[in-house]
């Protein structure tokens, strides 16, 4: 099945899975490593993909995906286009709080080739939070990893009383909607 569905499999015990979709590169790998280094009390699986749809051969081996983070590099228009193309392969129900957009490369404003407006519009249209970061800087990378980890906890249902939808509402309000 080409389209990713949020609840297509039973969850695994004591673990959560995040899927990072974005153009291949060092930052994604480094972010994944930073997330693995964080202190946590459950197992995480990090899957990296450059675009959707995911190859169907390994579908049965893949665990249930709890959070999809689309990584957009502000320096390349191509990353934005590929993310927009991949969005067509995500089920509607994922956008109820299980998707977030990660925008990297904001440290170099003069190398921007993607408009801020386009990114804001993307976040608005898909009702998902947009997190701006600079993955090349160690400190910000660690902070982003911590944020993603927290979001993953919530999206996997490991925080009692807070559902992914509820959390996404909180994120939206804080962005000054």
């Amino acid at each position, binding site marked *: 099945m080409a*389209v990713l569905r949020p609840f297509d499999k*039973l969850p695994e015990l004591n673990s959560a899975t995040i899927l990072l979709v974005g153009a291949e590169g060092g930052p994604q790998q480094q972010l994944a490593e930073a997330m693995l280094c964080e202190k946590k009390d459950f197992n995480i699986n990090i899957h990296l993909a450059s675009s959707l749809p995911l190859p169907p051969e390994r579908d049965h081996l893949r665990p249930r995906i709890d959070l999809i983070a689309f990584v957009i590099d502000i320096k390349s228009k191509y990353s934005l286009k590929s993310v927009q193309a991949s969005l067509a*392969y995500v089920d509607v129900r994922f956008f109820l709080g299980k998707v977030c957009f990660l925008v990297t490369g904001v440290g170099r404003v003069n190398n921007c080739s993607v408009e801020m407006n386009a990114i804001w519009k993307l976040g608005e249209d898909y009702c998902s939070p947009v997190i701006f970061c600079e993955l090349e800087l160690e400190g910000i990378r660690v902070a982003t990893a911590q944020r993603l980890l927290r979001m993953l906890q919530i999206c996997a249902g490991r925080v009692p009383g807070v559902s992914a939808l509820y959390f996404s509402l909180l994120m939206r309000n804080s962005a000054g909607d």
Partner: protein
Amino acid sequence: MNQSIFENFAPSDSIENAEKLPEMMNDSVCPVDATEELLRECENIWKEMEKCQSKLTLLTAEPVPESDAKVSLLLTRMQALRAEYYQWQKRNPELISTNPEVLLLLGEEELQKLQKELEMVLSAVQSKNEKLKEDLEREQQWHDEQVQALNTFKEMEEEMKKEVVTDSEKRVFQELKNQVSELKEYKKKLLNALGEFLEEHFPLPEKNGNAKKKRFSEEPSEQVITMHEILEILLNQLMSTPHEPYVTADDSFWPPYLELLLRSGIVLRHPEDPNMIRLEAFHE
């Protein structure tokens, strides 16, 4: 459709307890019946989940349409929120477990978590406090410096004001003094020049004059004053008492000089008394 998604909601936090089970199994204090109880609970929950999952797999995938993505998403969100809301309404608080060991362990864990979080808060607040203290000190220093600078400027302003005032007064005074001294100099020069001129051209008549002169000077033994002195007397009289400029022309005034002065209009006779003369007031 959305109801079934959110039946997953209730089991998700029971899964939390199910996941605590492996940790507690390592604890040898826990008696067998407690673990058995928990295991049974977990099995039940898992069965429920499998039921829900089977319902979910029947749902077809719905990708987001390209156009009107926001509208369809917002509609879905609204439905989902409503479903969640109803779930919350229906829900009653449930007991985790009545087994005291389980509760004890859970309580310990919670308290430890709480302690860690409070410690974090404490350290964050302390560091913030320190930073604020440093900022305050810095600002205080800056403020003091500014106050000092202000005071210095004020003093300077005062001094400069004073200087300006006295300076202008002094200057004027100085100028007047200069003028006065200049005039005095000039007056001296004029008087000297006058004296020289008079000495040269109007000397005292000599005692050994010729017969003609002897005839006019009937009393040569009498003291005759110089032209200079005559003019001085007349000038002083005019200047000191302008209302009484007349001087008695006695015999000390050598008559030829007197005649000369009268004829040239420098000196005038009193209209009623021929012996009184005065200096013509050239300055009026």
